[in-house]
């Protein structure tokens, strides 16, 4: 039990932060209320430090920031063993990007309310204030995200995914005072529930097929007894359901509406947090099945035929997912990136462009999932590519949304300043607001994947891993889509840089929150700095992507533990070891 807790220090830190923020945000004094954002940031810093310092790790891994190697000498007995190093990397990444995402969140809620209180028109009323909820949900969602990374059980994974998503529904709804946000929140909630239903259904199938909810045991079962069709269907449904979180076709419909309805900083949050949760889950599920099947074995014929069904066996030297899953993900990847990019071209609203671009990027990353861990080197490992791309995408995408958050137009009818809407609003931004303009240019070009920016180094391993996994047609589609994406990213980059504001256009101005501007510049700086010092990070991603093959140690009887031992009610049961070092 205590073994298990050592994995969860970051989550515990975030949770404590959440509790503090919830109380602090309702304080009567303005200073205390304002401190809630600070506490949120502090909680993230502590969580990030905890992730680096306290996560027990297998083998050596040097922290990219401190260069210090902590080792508690713990056996890898607790936690999931399929991607044993991934939680460390993922939690560090979540803490860093979380901090970047926090910067533009200043003043998202309660702006009018606080103004009224400051002018003395109204007294502070806890019932009208949203600040506590907002930051608490922010942290709750990130806690869920970190829990996803440490999940070693289907039930845990489900709860973590929901903990990630439920707060975001509310964050969307309260992010502005417009009805559009509420509509977006409701839409997001209902469709999210539908998605959750699908993957929970899938999880049930998996439990039915293997008799266990523990990922390690499921992997063990699949390795020993083969992948039966029930488990296969379960995996299929689970992955399709989780693809709601990453906004992949056919679960992508909500994306543009929700992103458009939410405040830009919350849209930026949505583009990173649920996506990361989704990809971590998909990687975990895929690692449970294993990338060790020969190409010919589709398993479908057997599934459709009546009579006794022969389960799919892993074979030595094979390096792909079961054909059925591979084709599902293949079609999803191809459709996702194409639909995302093609629809983005038609948009004029910046947030909708970025929403479709977020869909397209999910498609890119699915290529890495299909490619699998390869031989474990950075260029050949699709898993490492996905993990590294999550970092790249998190940094550069936060920048574009932060730019939008840091700008506003004159107040509309409801008295609230209106947001930047169309690309035309960005005209001449580099001249009028150079810091934000250039941040937008850098982040857009990085999203496009222009060398030598971060996006290029992120996208490159997706290509190389796809090629080494022999997925040439998919890589060609990826390349074509990258070219199509240039169409709208260049528009986002060149409109601020080269065009002049229209003569009659209304002036845009800085939103009165300095930290939003800082957020944009930090992202843009990160895009450049991380591109230069990327090799340490790629090493970390490569470490994190190490997939443990579930080979059975000789004479390990505990491995044959009955399914009941890992009943959902007892997730803390020390899982049977898949292999010993």
């Amino acid at each position: 039990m205590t073994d298990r807790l050592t994995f969860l220090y970051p989550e515990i830190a975030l949770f404590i932060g959440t509790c503090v923020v919830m109380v602090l945000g309702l304080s009567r004094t303005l200073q205390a209320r304002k401190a809630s954002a600070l506490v949120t940031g502090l909680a993230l810093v502590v969580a990030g430090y905890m992730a680096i310092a306290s996560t027990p790790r297998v083998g050596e891994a040097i922290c990219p920031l401190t260069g210090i190697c902590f080792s508690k000498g713990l056996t890898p007995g607790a936690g999931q063993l399929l991607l044993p190093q991934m939680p460390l990397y993922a939690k560090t990444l979540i803490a860093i990007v979380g901090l970047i995402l926090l910067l533009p969140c200043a003043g998202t809620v309660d702006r009018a309310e606080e103004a009224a209180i400051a002018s003395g028109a109204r007294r502070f009323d806890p019932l009208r204030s949203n600040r506590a909820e907002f930051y608490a949900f922010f942290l709750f969602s990130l806690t869920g995200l970190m829990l996803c990374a440490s999940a070693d059980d289907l039930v845990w994974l489900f709860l973590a995914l929901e903990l990630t998503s439920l707060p975001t529904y509310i964050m969307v709804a309260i992010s502005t005072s417009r009805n559009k946000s509420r509509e977006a929140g409701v839409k997001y909630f209902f469709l999210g529930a539908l998605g959750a239903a699908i993957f929970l259904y899938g999880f049930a199938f998996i439990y039915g097929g293997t008799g266990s909810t523990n990922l390690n045991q499921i992997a063990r079962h699949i390795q020993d007894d083969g992948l039966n069709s029930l488990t296969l269907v379960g995996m299929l449904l689970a992955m399709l359901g989780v693809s709601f979180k990453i906004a992949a076709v056919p679960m992508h419909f909500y994306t543009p509406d929700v992103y458009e309805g939410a405040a830009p900083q919350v849209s930026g949050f949505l583009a990173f947090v649920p996506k990361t949760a989704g990809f971590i889950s998909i990687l975990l599920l895929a690692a449970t099945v294993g990338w060790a099947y020969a190409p010919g074995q589709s398993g479908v014929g057997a599934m459709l035929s009546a009579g006794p069904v022969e389960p799919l066996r892993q074979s030595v030297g094979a390096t792909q997912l079961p054909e059925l899953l591979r084709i599902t993900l293949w079609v999803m990847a191809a459709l996702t990136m194409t639909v995302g990019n093609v629809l983005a071209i038609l948009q004029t609203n910046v947030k909708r462009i970025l929403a479709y671009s977020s869909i397209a990027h999910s498609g890119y990353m699915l290529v890495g999932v299909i490619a699998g861990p390869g031989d474990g080197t950075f260029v050949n490992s699709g898993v490492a590519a996905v993990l590294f791309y999550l970092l790249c995408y998190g940094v550069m995408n936060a920048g574009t949304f932060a730019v939008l958050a840091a700008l506003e137009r004159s107040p509309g009818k409801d008295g609230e300043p209106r947001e930047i809407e169309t690309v035309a609003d960005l005209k001449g931004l580099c001249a009028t607001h150079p810091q934000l303009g250039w941040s937008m240019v850098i982040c857009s070009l990085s999203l496009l994947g222009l060398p030598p920016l971060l996006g290029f180094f992120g996208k490159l391993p997706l290509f190389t891993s796809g090629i080494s996994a022999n997925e040439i047609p998919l890589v060609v589609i990826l390349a074509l889509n990258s070219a199509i994406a240039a169409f709208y990213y260049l528009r986002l980059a060149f409109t601020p840089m080269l065009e002049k504001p229209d003569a009659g256009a209304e002036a845009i101005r800085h939103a009165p929150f300095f930290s939003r501007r800082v957020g944009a510049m930090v992202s843009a700086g990160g895009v450049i700095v991380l591109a230069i010092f990327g090799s340490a990070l790629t090493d970390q991603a490569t470490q994190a992507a190490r997939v443990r093959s579930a080979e059975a140690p000789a004479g390990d009887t505990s491995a044959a533990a009955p399914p009941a031992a890992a009943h959902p009610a007892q997730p803390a049961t020390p899982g049977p070891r898949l292999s010993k070092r």
Partner: protein
Amino acid sequence: MLTAIGTMVTAAEPEGGGSHWTLTMIVVLPLVSFVLCGLCAAFKVKSKLPAWITVASLAAAFVFTLMAFMNAGPMIAAAGAEHGAEHAAASAEHAGHLTVHVFDWLNFDWGGGKSSSGRFDADFGFYIDGLTLLWMLFVTGLGTLIALYASEYMAHDVGLGYCRFFAAFSLFVLSMSCLVMASNLLMLFFGWEGVGLCSYLLIGYFYKKPAAVAAAKKAFIVNRIGDLGLLMGILGVYAAFGTVQYDKVFEFIHKGVDAGGHPLTTSSWIPVILPLLLTAGAFGKSAQLFFYVWLPDAMEGPTPVSALIHAATMVTAGVFLIARMMPLYTIDPAHTILTFVAWGGTITAFWAATIGMAHFDIKRVMGYSTASQLGYMFAGLGVMNSAGGAAHVFSHAFFKATLFLACGAVMHGFAGQLDLRKLSGVRKLPGWKIVAAAMFFGALNLSGVTFTAGFWSKDLILASSFEQSPAIGWILLITAGLTAYYTFRAYFRVFEGPVYFEPGDEVHGHDEHEDHAGHGHDGHGEESHAHDGHAQGHGHGGEFHPHAPGWAINTVLATLVVGCFAIIPLVGFAEHGAWVGKMVGASSAAMHGGEEGHGTFLGMNPHSVMYYVSSVVGLLGIAAAWWLHLAGRTSAAHANADKLEPALGPIVTWARHKWYVDEFYDAVIRIPLKFLSNIFYLLDQYLVDGLVNLTGFVPKGLGRLIRPSQSGELHGYALGMAGGLAVLILIVLMVAR
């Protein structure tokens, strides 16, 4: 950033950790300075702060270079002594070198690391040997001095322009350090492009002046052509040896095989094509042969830039490249490409000297002189005397910097005046003694007067040239005479004779005065403001008061003159280039022995008689200059030389117009290209654009087709999700069956 680098350094190999730090600091300090100058610009600093930051960091970098030199010194001295004593094969292995790995920069492997060819490694690391240290010593040393000089010279631009200048200056030193200290060709290439960029930024410093912008573009574009060659050369090296790390490449060459184990000498392309491609890059950067056109125009930049970048350091990068890759050049037993390099250098040396003889703008004269002297260096490399080539780089860096900075002081003091027909007797004005002395001693060096540093280094090249190929030797010897003539022509016209001066055009146009950056020449600022009232009267003496240089300029000039003398024992009085020879002997540029030429100078051993011959030739040149430009001269505009002009006919005019090379390029390259581009434009307009619009239409059309799915209605989306799921599963079942 500092800590990040620090961590990486300590994480690198532990052996010799101390010297790693010093080496890394050499690169880090200019970077810090660059960042700080950038911050100064961001915070709109309106003082000389950026200059002091730059001077301090570069001085510290120089100290670290010295420390690195002390650390690596014993090893290099040992290897160099061995080389000098035996004058025998000191191969890359024997010559001491130190490869320092700072951090992994670009490391790729594919094919699962099973085959050795499936790797590409380029570390961020340093390859330290005699050549590296020699270059770094004068890059950082002269960089410091010239930054100090510039602190006063650019004073009229204090503000944003000042920050911009020093930021680019620091970036230049950073790039140059990367270029020189690189442990592999890719890092060299990045440094190479970096210095090219800084050169572009600094030539175009007065970006509101069309000539400066045009010159910047010209330099950049001409360099691109050479850089293409260099890049192809680097790719070729990778193709041949499977690596771009120097130590590994040299190891292969030493063994005489390529990555596949085939002998190099039988290869159809490695011995000739590879060095030829690298030579293209070297000639572009060092303004040789038909690439030389950019260098004279580059004089549009502020003078400190001309001194540092376009005389002392950047333009010698080409020499450095060939010296560094010398093992590659010597694979070919016939030395085809080295001969080509020698002839390229020789022709440029002569060609540029003739133009220098006719020009009236003293800074341009120095510009042509630089191209000419670079020609000598390449000739030195080409005739297998890399020690001579490097020694000349070393001494040239000092005396040419001196000459440029003296010219800059004149320009600064006389409101941009550089025409030698409009200045005379400057030495006799109060406050100009140090400038005149600096110019005089620089000119002595450039002319190769006996016992100066320039004399020793030029001698090495001349003697080896006669040994290898008397034709090259004779041309270079004649050029030496021409050099002495044009150098002292400039000196005698400007600094000697009757006192007379006209201010340059920078005292005109008061309406432009609000805008400093827009001003054409350097040096306008203060005095034109101070003398606004009387600037109109710019006759003899008149009301224009020349602005004598201040302490910074004088200190730097005096230091450089002392430096010119101090380096004499480093390059002279010994066989094979003394100390510099030892340094080069302990590097990849060490020449394999047993390749003695048999040419003679009129039947005598060139190495023993060249001292006397070149002294005589130099003195003859000076005498001619004295006779034609000083003797009996009563005005600034006219001298005895004018009487010669009719006799020479059109030659003078041609030389004055740079032998119409620019016009020739215009007719042969630009006009056909423009014609071609017009054709392509039409093709593009009607054919390609049509196709592009068509392809652009496909995704758009596709988008329109699926757009209705985004109706915004909740139940529609839910239906879409469920339906999509069903369709996807159906597709999968059908495909996967």
